[in-house]
């Protein structure tokens, strides 16, 4: 009897120990801002200790854009490039290149808590992320710019557009992303709500990986390109403000639409071409997608089913639909594992051709479309190094024509989308880049602002994320050297008061704003900038870990990693 009691007691103790160890880790720093501020003032009393960081590549043969990243003094950073880059300010304004304290990056080994708890300089700081439920931000009172208008910002998410609209109508959220196309009219007719259109600065495409047969045959890809009635897809499944894509890049981006427009819909020619390639009776394949709504693809499963029906009717290609989880789908696409057709899209991060073409088809792009095409890469590299749009035009024309020729993907539509808010929201706006800024929004007299987007962020370390739902959350917290104007695409100063280039645009010097405080109380200096960049740049760095370690934005926008072979 006594033994049983002892056994039971020890079991009970063991169980409670297990429960305690499963408890979520306590949040650091931000919980006690007072204490950390003191620590920080202690830290800044020793400016003499500043040892500027320098990281450089032995030469430019590794293929990337950076030659040297160095801190000149406490508030000056210099980027020496291997080739001229006129889009450099746009690139460093992008949120994948946000600055975090060097100590914080090192303390977490480039991953770990960085994924859930970024320390930035932004108007909001992460208070709590309840996975699967909500992400809560609190106002950062020591923000260097205008402090946020609402003390608490909450991100929620639902993949169901009906739920988003319903919650907005019920008043449980203050703003939502991407109402369903059928709900546009409903919101417009509701005096309590406002609908703000978002310009179609995006592309929805049908991707193919040329390392898997039969997509290794260019004729097969061309045949499919000719045999999808893209007008029908846009007419039936896209909201107002959408258009059929004549090129991969939207026309409002400089040089986006130079070169031949896409193939006309001609299923007869497509069938002939497919027969010539050896598939007169079509073939079996798969159609991969993730069932999430994005501005470029508002009705995912309907579009997927229509493409499936069109492939069958026009080419007798029997495509089996495979729906994947969002993160797994992006990983599989990036690593080139999708052996059929896949539906994906892209929203502009900054309004430049490099953001569209270089990211997808450039030298540093992922394995999404299989083997890369040298004639596309050459033209992109040549264009990226030229300063004016006019000079770049012929190269982008050639690149666009080469894309049309090789068909790594089929551009389908530039999708119009919208955001909706309560009518009482002041400062409501939509951003063509998808990075709505909530620090300028408020409902007078309300302490909490709730935003509901399409999906949960994958992680909050946006150096290693490409999903817009993650980027938007990061953008509230962490800032880059430069920034985009609220609701627009023009570049403005942020952590750097200005960035100056030399004559041939190969050396960029950024002068940091002084007195900028991080959320943990430490002060921004040039070494934080160098550390944040080098973490991504240097593949041999122990901090080059991230979420998946892909750092896709860096490699595609800046050509490649240092020490990539190690």
């Amino acid at each position, binding site marked *: 009897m006594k033994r049983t009691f002892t056994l039971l007691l020890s079991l009970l103790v063991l169980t409670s120990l297990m429960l305690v160890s499963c408890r979520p880790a306590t949040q650091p720093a931000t919980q006690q801002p007072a204490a950390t501020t003191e620590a920080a003032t202690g830290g800044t009393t020793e400016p003499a200790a500043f040892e500027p960081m320098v990281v450089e590549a032995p030469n430019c043969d590794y293929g990337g854009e950076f030659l040297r990243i160095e801190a000149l003094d406490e508030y000056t950073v210099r980027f020496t490039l291997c080739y001229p880059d006129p889009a450099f300010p746009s690139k460093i304004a992008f949120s994948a290149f946000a600055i975090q304290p060097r100590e914080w990056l090192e303390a977490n080994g480039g991953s770990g808590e960085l994924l859930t708890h970024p320390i930035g300089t932004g108007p909001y700081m992460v208070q709590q992320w309840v996975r699967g439920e909500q992400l809560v931000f609190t106002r950062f009172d020591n923000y260097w710019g205008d402090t946020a208008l609402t003390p608490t910002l909450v991100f929620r998410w639902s993949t*169901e*557009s*009906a739920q988003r*609209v*319903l919650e907005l109508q019920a008043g449980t959220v203050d703003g939502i992303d991407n109402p*369903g196309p*059928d*709900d546009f009219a*409903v919101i417009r007719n509701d005096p309590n709500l406002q609908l703000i259109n978002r310009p179609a600065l995006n592309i929805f495409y049908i991707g193919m990986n040329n390392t898997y047969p039969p997509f290794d045959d260019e004729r097969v890809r061309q045949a499919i390109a000719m045999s999808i009635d893209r007008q*029908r897809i846009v007419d*039936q*499944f896209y909201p107002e403000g959408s258009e059929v894509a004549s090129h991969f890049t939207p026309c409002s981006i400089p040089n986006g639409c130079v070169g031949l427009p896409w193939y006309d819909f001609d299923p007869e020619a497509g069938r002939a071409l497919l027969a010539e390639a050896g598939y007169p009776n079509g073939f079996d394949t798969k159609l991969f997608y993730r*069932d999430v709504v994005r501005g470029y693809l508002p*009705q995912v*499963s*309907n579009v*997927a*089913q*229509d493409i*499936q*029906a069109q492939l069958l*009717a026009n080419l007798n290609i029997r495509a*089996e*639909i*495979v*729906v994947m989880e969002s993160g797994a789908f992006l990983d599989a696409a990036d690593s080139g594992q999708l052996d059929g057709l896949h539906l994906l899209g892209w929203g502009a991060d900054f309004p430049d051709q490099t953001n569209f073409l270089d990211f997808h088809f450039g030298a540093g792009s992922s394995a999404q479309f299989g083997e890369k095409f040298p004639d596309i890469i050459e033209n992109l590299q040549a264009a990226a190094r030229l300063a004016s749009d006019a000079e770049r035009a012929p190269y982008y024309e050639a690149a666009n024509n080469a894309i049309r020729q090789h068909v790594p993907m089929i551009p389908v539509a530039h999708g119009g989308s919208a955001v909706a808010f309560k009518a009482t929201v002041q400062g409501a706006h939509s951003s063509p880049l998808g990075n709505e800024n909530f620090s300028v929004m408020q409902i007078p007299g309300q302490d909490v602002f709730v935003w509901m987007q399409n999906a949960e962020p994958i992680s909050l370390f946006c150096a290693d994320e490409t999903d817009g739902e993650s980027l938007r959350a990061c953008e509230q917290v962490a800032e880059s050297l430069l920034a985009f104007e609220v609701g627009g695409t023009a570049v403005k100063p942020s952590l750097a008061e200005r960035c100056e280039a030399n004559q041939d645009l190969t050396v960029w010097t950024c002068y940091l704003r002084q007195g900028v405080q991080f959320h943990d109380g430490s002060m921004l200096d040039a070494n934080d900038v160098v550390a944040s960049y080098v973490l991504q740049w240097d593949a041999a760095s122990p901090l080059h870990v991230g979420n998946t370690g892909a750092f896709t934005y860096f490699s595609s926008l800046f050509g490649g990693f240092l020490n990539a072979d190690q």
Partner: protein
Amino acid sequence: MSKETTPNKVAKLDAEGLSLKSVSLWQITWRRLFKRKSALVGLFILGVLVFVALTAQWIAPYSPIEVLIGVEDVTPRQAPCIHLLGCPKDQPQHIMGIDGNVRDQFSRILHGARQSLIIGFSTVTFAIVIGTVLGALGGYLGGWVDNVIMRIMDVVLAFPSLLLAIAIVTVLGPGLVNALLAIGIVSIPAYARVVRASVLSVREMDYVSAAKAMGGNTFHILFKRILPNALTPLIVQGTLGIATAILDAAALSFLGLGAQPPLAEWGSMLGAERNQVFTAPHLVFYPGLAIMLTVLAFNLLGDGLRDALDPRLGHVAG
């Protein structure tokens, strides 16, 4: 079933007052079933469903996967147009409207009946076959065999059935066949337990002892003597189980783990248009109604069968 020898003892007990001539258990069951209005309603709905499922390709006005873009002047999610109810005659008639991919909803609902019945019968047959074998072995052999089998069944039962089915489909990969397999697997324990209980009660009967004494082998006794007399609860459980299976399959398809597009399946039709519940309610109403009616039919029938087959309820029912 007709080959089975029904002990007169049972028939007499059940058929009170009619026992002058030998009446089989099944005749009695049918008579009792027909006296129950609810069971008749269930039987009627089921009859309609089976008819629709068998003749879908002839009675449906369109193919379930035919996209009407460019064929007719219709738009996605167009509301139902019924000529009898005043829809202009120059518009094509679609009595349940048009779905999100511009297909005729009515035709898809009709073809969906076929999927649902196949799902219901195949999963339950699968589960009954496996469950019966396991339950019968456990019940008859007893000892460690019984222990091992029933503990495994207990483990499976410990999981919520839909959750376990989702887990199984996640491992096997989405698709109708895998969903059927998953639902089949999670419903095995219910049948195994029912059969085991019946076998336990039947195996001590005199005629079993007699068969043993006559030198019948285990297989013969179990499958020829015991099982046929332990079937009644299984039939009830099976009928009710079909309803559950259809519901589970619809849930899996709703979640995108079961039937894959463009197959017309009620659960996936419901799931595909779930976001249009306010803007195009007809697209969620009809598949939902169809699922509800089917499940109701099997439940009514199952309840009726249970009452009809239960000798203790005989007086009340009769």
